[in-house]
């Protein structure tokens, strides 16, 4: 049989990120990835920086190096990433272990899926994130 040429139509990394007519859970997934990678980058540097204290170097203490406004702002971003990643992670732990998604049922049009069942959890997660962000912002600005 002659080999028929095919065009590889895989979306690639753009397929993780590109917005089409996608739903809110997909954006939650994208943000979870981005915040996770951001926190990991911070965390690896954080281990190195805090380990320096055994040499008597406290980069973060007093009015040292880490107190420039740009670092304060980036710290807030890390906190925001943590707030989102933690709240959304809580939802994911529940959902991915099969809780809060409902039982299998006879599909009757218009279909209600597990997405609809876990949606209130997502809303709670969003409010929790916003609450944490507000507390963090208040704290950072009043300090």
């Amino acid at each position: 049989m002659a080999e028929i040429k095919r065009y590889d139509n895989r979306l690639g990394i753009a397929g993780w990120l590109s917005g089409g007519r996608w739903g809110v859970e997909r954006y939650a997934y994208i943000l979870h990835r981005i915040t996770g990678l951001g926190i990991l980058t911070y965390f690896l540097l954080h281990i190195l920086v805090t380990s320096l204290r055994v040499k008597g170097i406290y980069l973060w203490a007093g009015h040292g190096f880490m107190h420039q406004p740009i670092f304060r702002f980036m710290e807030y971003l890390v906190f925001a990433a943590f707030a989102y990643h933690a709240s959304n992670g809580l939802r994911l732990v529940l959902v991915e272990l099969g809780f809060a998604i409902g039982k299998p049922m006879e599909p009757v049009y218009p279909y209600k899926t597990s997405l609809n069942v876990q949606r209130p959890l997502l809303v709670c997660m969003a409010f929790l994130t916003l609450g944490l962000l507000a507390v963090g912002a208040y704290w950072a600005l009043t300090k």
Partner: protein
Amino acid sequence: MAEAGKAVRQIAFHVTRYNPERDRVPFVTSYQVPVRQGMTVLDGLHYIKDNLDATLAWRYSCRMGICGSCGMLLNGRPALACNTQILHIANANLTVKPLPNFPIIRDLVPDLQSMFDKHRIVEPYILHANEAESDFWAGEFYQSTEQLKSYLQFSYCILCGCCMAACPTLATDTRYLGPMPLAAAQRYDADTRDEGRHARNAVTDAQSGVSHCHYAGECSRVCPKGVDPAKALQLLKRSLVLDYLHLGRQTSPCKKLQGPGNGTRLPDIAAVPKKTA
């Protein structure tokens, strides 16, 4: 309310074209289609083929959401062309692309072979510990309505590939099994007549297995049959975790009935017909 049969709007169909013998990359051709109330995307494609461009190729068969042939990317979302109303998703423009994450054979025809191969790997049929049971059954299996409901939803899959096209993991990962085969695995794992869960775990637990599902939820959102693959996959994860922690249900095949039992038949009920197979 527009009169049936009368065009209510001109809609531009932006259709992806690709001829493997001529084109290096796909390109887009636009067609003006007069759209009536109630016209599906499939009807629109037929209009183009009949009146504007006879070379347009796509795959379809039943035109009523049963066969799963006409999955396409309609305005950025995988759906069946036959059960998507044009006026529900388009105002003036409609982009029609082949399902992504599958190679294009021609125009709107994707090559679904990779999905069928992955489907085969999960052994989507009832497995018995005693293999002879599959060919020479000794009796009927009793299954309650509750037990039926635990997998019935996942058995409505028509293998259209919309979920595979919507899955973000499959956008980069060629080895990940994907929502359809894994939902099929859960459909048989959850079936009380089946004893193949532990055999299937070897596939669903592998690096290409269900741990690469992150609940983006697109598969369930686009499924034209309400199969809810995302739900199946989360239940599959739960059963895998329980199996890993040795807390899982030991396979308990449902009761096998050796015949109708010893009850007395009511006089107005006919006798059981003779076995034909």
